[in-house]
């Protein structure tokens, strides 16, 4: 058990908006740009679909970093979704910081469908940051891990 834990690679959950970042990830793939295999993408209809609960749940169950990617402000498919998401995430991240959770474990990035290169860059950077931070201990919940 101990051995396996030691070798555990960081797990990153990326909530990607269907209309932009998810397509951006596709473009990154078809342009043969790499991003770490530790990034698990969850497709959401819009960045504002991401409930703070999703993020905490991911951490509870063992994610080491959570990133939310949406359309650039002004470009949301539903016009204003990402503006609301922006306020919510600002407040949530600030609260996590207030509780002493490492600031760098959460991030929001605006990545369009045309920005395959940006997607790969963002994910590489984020993954290396999470690698530096190591395992998420403060937000895990052993009751939720199997």
């Amino acid at each position, binding site marked *: 058990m101990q051995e396996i834990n030691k070798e555990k690679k960081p797990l990153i959950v990326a909530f990607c908006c269907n209309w932009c970042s998810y397509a951006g990830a596709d473009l990154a793939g078809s342009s043969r740009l790499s991003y770490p295999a530790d990034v698990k993408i969850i497709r959401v209809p819009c960045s504002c679909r991401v409930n703070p609960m999703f993020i905490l749940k991911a951490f509870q169950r063992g994610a080491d970093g959570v990133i939310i990617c949406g359309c650039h402000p002004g470009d949301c498919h539903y016009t204003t979704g990402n503006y609301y998401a922006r306020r919510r995430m600002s*407040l949530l991240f600030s*609260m996590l910081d207030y*509780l*002493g959770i490492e600031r760098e474990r959460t991030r*929001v990035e605006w990545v369009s469908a045309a920005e395959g290169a940006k997607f790969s860059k963002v994910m590489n950077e984020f993954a290396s940051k999470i690698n530096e931070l190591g395992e998420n201990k*403060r937000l895990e919940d052993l009751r939720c891990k199997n």
Partner: protein
Amino acid sequence: MQKLETLMLEKAKNLLSSGEVSRVLGWKKGELGYDVEPSVFTSAQSLDNFVYNVFCGANLSKYLVQETKKEGKILVFLKPCDSYSFNQLIKEHRINKDKVYTVGVECQGKIDNYKLKENGIEVVESFDEEVDFVTVNGKKFTKGEIVLGKCSVCEKKLLDYDEVISINEKRSPDKDRFEMVKKLESMTADERYAFWKDQLSNCIRCNACRNVCPACTCTKCVFDNDNSGIASKANSDSFEEKMFHIIRAFHVAGRCTDCGECSRVCPQHIPLHLLNRKFIGDINRLYGTYQAGEDTTSKGPLTDYTKQDVDPSDVFGG
């Protein structure tokens, strides 16, 4: 203060007998002096148990969510802090305003029963209240010593009511309500983590803070979900209730009027208001000063946006 109670009783009796209202929402005497509780009175006779004194800290506004679904009109007495919650509930269409008669009542601060106990007072045999002092069982306290945390920072502002009953001048708060939040913000992340781990590890998940909160009125709460993965499992780590606390505070962010009920009722004395005030402080700083419940029409900060809002990556700590 006896006088206030008399005036309120008179009002209640008049409105009941004239048929203007069919019920009265107020506070009822307990067995032990300090255990005053919210109650609905339906007759002049039942009003014999009506009280208004320094132990009436409980916020009555949330009861109106159910009460205004019933037949007839109800009279409610609202302290300043209760009235903000009331307004917020009106704004969220949770209370039917046509079915309430609101009377604002003066408040000079209410007693924290836990603080009384800390001072060795288990049973209240007698008490006497003045604006700045309270004498309990012959022992004189300044209000500051035994008052609820929320009262020491309260503006005691009376909002719009159908009527107001007030005798004395209102007092200004003696403390800055963000003092402790600022102090925490100036600590290191590790210190903050230690602080919260220590505090939240006391939580027994009794859900009292949620149940009492006037901003928490969902019919079915996300925390009553059997599939949550944590239902009926013992904690294996002392910080494991943080999810509950983050979500509880987030859910009321922008809607919390800072009425202080969560901290008042917590049997473990967890300073929950410090989570709420973090959001309030951030909202004021990032999106402009906002007081939930001050009016019934303006847009809440989380149901609004501007194109110039900061990105989450630019928001840092304090």
